[in-house]
């Protein structure tokens, strides 16, 4: 194995050639935040009638339209803000990945109806 590969894999923060890793890390973390937002909003719309009602932006689609619209807004806004902060920087991608994977796991778990029901005690 190439020694430089090993070093690149273990040392943080790691640059990506001449381009800083910040923009990529921002996209990765924003995807995790978007996934978590989808899960949390799906649960909120399902669990609490008042939130479900307030999330009903477009009646033919019900809460789905607003859950997904708000998710997209949160995802894009977090991507924009993180990119502004990190676009010229090299950041610790391991920590970014862990946070993004937690967000992804929240998104996958909370969109699964039996988990939603379990949380709501149904």
């Amino acid at each position: 194995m190439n020694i430089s590969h090993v070093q690149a894999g273990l040392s943080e923060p790691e640059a990506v050639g001449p381009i800083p890793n910040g923009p990529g890390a921002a996209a990765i973390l924003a995807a995790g935040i978007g996934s978590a937002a989808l899960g949390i909003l799906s649960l909120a719309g399902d669990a609490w009638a008042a939130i479900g009602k307030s999330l009903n932006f477009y009646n033919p689609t019900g809460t789905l339209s607003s859950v997904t619209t708000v998710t997209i807004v949160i995802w894009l806004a977090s991507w924009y803000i993180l990119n502004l902060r990190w676009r010229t920087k090299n950041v610790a991608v391991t920590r970014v990945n862990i946070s993004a994977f937690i967000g992804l796991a929240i998104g996958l778990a909370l969109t699964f109806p039996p988990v939603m029901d379990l949380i709501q005690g149904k």
Partner: protein
Amino acid sequence: MEISTHDLWTALHGMGFGALFMLAFSGALAALYRTYAPVSATPPNSRAQSLLTLYLVAMVVLAWLTVFSGAYIVYPWYRAVPPVGITDLADFPRRLLLSSGKTSEWHNVGMEWKEHVAWLAPIAMTMVAYVTWKYRRAIAQPQHMRTAVLVFAVAAFVATGIAGAFGAFLNKYAPIRGGHIIILMEAEK
């Protein structure tokens, strides 16, 4: 041979955009893994990298078309509320499924899961395409960014698989009907 507009949109959503997106995963995952392998025997050249980026962008477009056509065109027909006094629920798939204990979980689990989890795929694939475009071959160097790209690509594949499988089953037990009839062919008498 005829088809209704609702059938046509449902087929376009599921078998056009959705199935094409799903099929594209086999190529994308193989290409991403090969490109980002820690020790790549043959690093991709500039042309191959551009083709991969184009391929991923096409997948992103398909993913967004799938979820938007599903949520804003097909789903309102699925959840249509029947007028009072209607006993034939064939044109109201959600109510049809919920009318029997034998089929209600297709909605309560299947549709409830599908309609939400599907949205993870375009979000994840947009990130995958962006990072691949942004860093091109340079991403083969740092292992952590490569790991995130592969994990999110696999998650998008899983989410699409769940949505696609339940979509097929839901359309079997409570197909979306209605709309204008389009005559495609007519047999000669």
